[in-house]
């Protein structure tokens, strides 16, 4: 029993890492301009597609040294996806800044549909498979009933990469000038302009940072499941959004915590209850959070002492 539980814990943490990385993009954008970027799931999907294409290109070039291939694919996914994230903000959101609150939200939904359809048309609607890249794992221990707890090398890769990225991002936000400028825009955009912050550029960079993390998540999903299609961004995006709300939208540690909790809920629900209803369980959590704790676990109340 314990072995089974531990195995689900590992699976849940891996899944949660991926959700957490996507959730950071939602939470950072919400923090700085107060909108839900509903196209963020599609940015993640594009990250997965770029990864697949990069793997295929490397395969054609006969580059088979795995660490090098992973590094190249990771960088390619980050760069191309960041460009998409930047462009989406530039085309669909910036012209609407200063317009009524719902306008960018509607634009985001439109962007989400447009990106899905663009990928469907340009890449085809069928699922794209790749060969497994990282195989094998470590047997942690064998339980009483002969159930072995395995942590695959891929899971180790995902969790370590997530921890490193989280550390880097936390450092950027709390310690660097860029992070201070982002927080300044988040708290008072007009004042940020008065002290010399280029507000538009800072918002663009926030989208780029969110897209970079989504690209990494896209690569992880590609490696984990071995298939991608144009529709994966929808469900993953909704779950990551749920994670961001659960953790407290606007809060960076909240997004990560929410992601991990959603991953664990999904893994344990699938293990102990009915796997068909795992999404119901996750979105049930969203409903409960919105009813009983709308600010999320680590979010702060809207009203502030001035």
């Amino acid at each position, binding site marked *: 029993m314990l072995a089974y539980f531990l195995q689900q814990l590992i699976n849940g943490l891996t899944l949660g890492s991926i959700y957490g990385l996507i959730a950071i993009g939602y939470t950072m954008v919400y923090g700085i301009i107060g909108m839900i970027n509903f196209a963020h799931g599609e940015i993640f999907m594009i990250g997965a597609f770029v990864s697949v294409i990069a793997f295929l290109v490397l395969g054609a070039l006969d580059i088979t040294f795995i660490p090098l291939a992973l590094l190249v694919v990771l960088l390619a996914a980050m760069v191309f996806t960041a460009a998409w994230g930047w462009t989406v903000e530039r085309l669909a959101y910036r012209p609407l800044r200063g317009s009524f609150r719902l306008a960018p939200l509607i634009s985001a939904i439109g962007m989400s549909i447009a990106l899905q359809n663009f990928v469907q048309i340009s890449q085809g609607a069928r699922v794209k498979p790749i060969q497994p890249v990282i195989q094998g794992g470590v047997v942690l221990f064998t339980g009483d009933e002969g159930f072995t707890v395995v942590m695959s090398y891929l899971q180790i890769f995902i969790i370590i990469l997530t921890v490193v990225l989280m550390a880097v991002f936390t450092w950027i936000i709390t310690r660097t000038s860029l992070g*201070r400028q982002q927080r300044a825009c988040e*708290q008072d955009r007009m*004042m940020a*302009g*008065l*002290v*010399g912050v*280029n*507000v538009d550029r800072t918002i663009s960079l926030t989208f780029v940072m969110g897209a970079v993390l989504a690209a990494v998540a896209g690569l992880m999903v590609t490696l984990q499941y071995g298939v991608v299609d144009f529709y994966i961004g929808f469900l993953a995006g909704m779950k990551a959004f749920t994670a961001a709300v659960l953790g407290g939208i606007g809060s960076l540690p909240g997004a990560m915590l929410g992601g991990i909790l959603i991953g664990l809920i999904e893994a344990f629900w699938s293990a102990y209850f009915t796997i068909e209803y795992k999404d119901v369980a996750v979105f049930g959590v969203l409903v409960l959070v919105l009813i009983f704790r709308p600010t999320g676990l680590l979010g702060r109340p809207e009203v502030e002492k001035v």
Partner: protein
Amino acid sequence: MLEVRGVHTFYGQIEALKGVDISVEEGEIVTLIGSNGAGKTTLLMTICGNPRASRGQVLFEGEDITQVPTHHLVERGIAQSPEGRRIFSRMTVMENLQMGALRTGAAHFDKDLDMVFDLFPRLKERRDQRGGTLSGGEQQMLAIARALMSRPRLLLLDEPSLGLAPMVVRQIFDVIREINRSEGMTVFLVEQNAFHALKLAHRAYVMVNGRITLAGTGAELLANPEIRAAYLEGGH
């Protein structure tokens, strides 16, 4: 140093400034007094390009800055402590000061920090506290200190005395006089607290309904019976 020529500013359909002319010379303290809603804050914000003047010109050191983006003005030497202080409430005092020094580079930072801590010792005690937890007076000190961290040549102050205890007001006005005397800082001060502002200022303007109605030295306006009746009698 600063010249505002025939500036009109609109908020939607409402004309907040109806052709304003003022000038501020280097080394001066110039104050703009007027009642609530006269357009004083709008003038300061128009100087900073947010909102933009729909007609007229703003010149700084001889250059037309009417269309310069707000975030470039601090590099040119204009800093503002705006209405309502607008300190970054979820950042520490230190981070707020770092934001002020955003465009000055690291070379001067420590020296400038010592300078503002000398002016406002309270901020030094509270350097690691979040801005939002400071008292009103401390927040005002922080807003001015943040502006000073950008090494401005022109300091714009919007109602630094608002809502503060008389003793704190005096302290803040003393600091303004001090930086003007010792550093030669040019100050453009918007105030409702006319008595203190006129006593401090070399020259002053009076604004009513988006227009400048009177101008003169601080002492002249203090002695002017109209001004006394409208802005000084009763209180202060």
